[in-house]
């Protein structure tokens, strides 16, 4: 039951230029793990210090934002096309973050407040 996964240009530095993969993952958490297994050097870029998938990475299934389809509960269908797009928008549901937290992750929210001030020129 393969699904086609299209990776963004921003990933290519970490995927040896691979833009597209076939996956047999049945849901989003599995797909992310599979991407990380296939491209180990992508892993530290895909997750933040606490092991959670970075908030600016968006997943779309066919034409729809996966968050409208049930997020990590959505079961991939044969022939689905999954599109990974970073930085279109700033969203990652709390459920998704929790679900993707690695067992070894340090506790503590990766809240926005920990990042550098976004709107002040340094």
């Amino acid at each position, binding site marked *: 039951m393969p699904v086609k996964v*299209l990776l*963004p*240009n*921003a*990933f290519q*530095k970490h995927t040896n230029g691979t833009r597209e993969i076939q996956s047999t993952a049945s849901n989003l958490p599995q797909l992310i793990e599979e991407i990380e297994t296939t491209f180990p050097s992508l892993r530290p*870029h*895909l997750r*933040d210090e606490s092991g959670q998938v*970075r*908030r*600016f*990475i*968006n997943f*779309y299934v066919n*034409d729809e*934002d996966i*968050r*409208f389809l049930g997020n990590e509960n959505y079961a991939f269908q044969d022939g689905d096309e999954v*599109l990974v*797009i*970073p*930085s*279109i*928008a*700033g*969203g*990652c*549901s*709390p459920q998704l973050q929790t679900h993707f937290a690695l067992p070894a992750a340090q506790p503590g929210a990766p*809240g*926005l*407040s920990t*990042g*550098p001030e*976004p*709107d*002040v*020129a*340094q």
Partner: protein
Amino acid sequence: MATSYGLQCRECGKRYDNAPLSICDECFSPLEVVCDLEAARRNFTREAIAAGPSSMWRYQALLPVPDDYKPVTPAGWTPLLPAPRLAERIGAANLYIKNDAVCLPTLSFKDRVVAVALANAQAFGFETVGCSSTGNLANAVAAQAARQGLKTYILVPADLEPAKILNTQVYGARLVRVDGNYDHVNRLCSQIAERYNWGFVNVNLRPYYAEGSKTVGFEIAEQLGWRLPDNVVVPMAGGALIVKIRKAFKELVALGLVEDKPVRFFGAQATGCSPISTAVKTGADHIEPQRPATIARSLAIGNPADGVYAARAIRESGGWAEDVSDVELVSGILELAETEGIFTETAGGVATAVTARLYADGRIHRDELTVLCITGNGLKTTDALAGAYEQQAAIRPRLADFEAFIEEGSQKEEALAVGGSHAR
């Protein structure tokens, strides 16, 4: 002469040289422009600005454009108007309107961001530019690209207001209507920008584009006599404008052009598409995307690119976000037109209605100096007012008919007044 500037990741802080790039390759977060304020200190003075052109380019020293850039469009420098009659209606005493309904050349604040984006498109050598748009951006890109001799592809949701479609096509732009909402269009543009060597103003040129919004903040401060207001009310679609007005104020404070003081930022959305106001109200540090369902199409972005930053800017400033129904936003359009003679589009109706709500709820106090940002022109969304006015029967060209018409009108007014007093 423009100062030095570059790109920086908004999350991990990684620096990048200037390039058509909007995503950090380390953490996949958005990039933004940072200007070297120290380098700008010499050129960015009140005197130098006053001697500059009557357009947003008077602030060129803090805009990310090449040193030798010669502006081709006089965007910006729109009126900041006292609004006493609207103020009286909504219980305010010190209200101003920043009126970008008359921003040139295409009557919305998007002319500012496009001016900066296309300056960079040319610097990067793009011959074709494009954008995803809810309408105003489409108009602005089409017009300014025509003036700069660039080829243009513009992608819009298929159900966009006819006036905004016509106001794009008239400039010779290739318009692509997409069967979907803005978020679908925006996602498609992200893919196109990766495939084609085009400058997409709100995709790969986004960091530069967004800086253009700072000029709204620079102008508000200068037009208030180089001081900051107490409050700013800003309509929110992608959320960049409110963030950049705040950035502008901080830059002015850093350069000593205005005295530092707390400014509270208030965001306005339509309830039918309110992902940012929802985040502010619930205290969330993330944005839950929504499927837009509002006539305020220029604000109908369900997955706003700067949503988290807008929500954070509002919260940090001690402000608030509010959203209003489509019925309320239409009332907002009418109220602004009837009291101040400014005809705004649906987004301005949202901002006006939200401002009224903020005063009514006591979130903004009567005497505080408050600036309401009107970002677009009502002539583009006249369909929002379809059915708002009865078509009067024509009279014959005779004085007697005119007098009868006046008499009938005063009788109606009396009847309304009597009805009103009974109701009380």
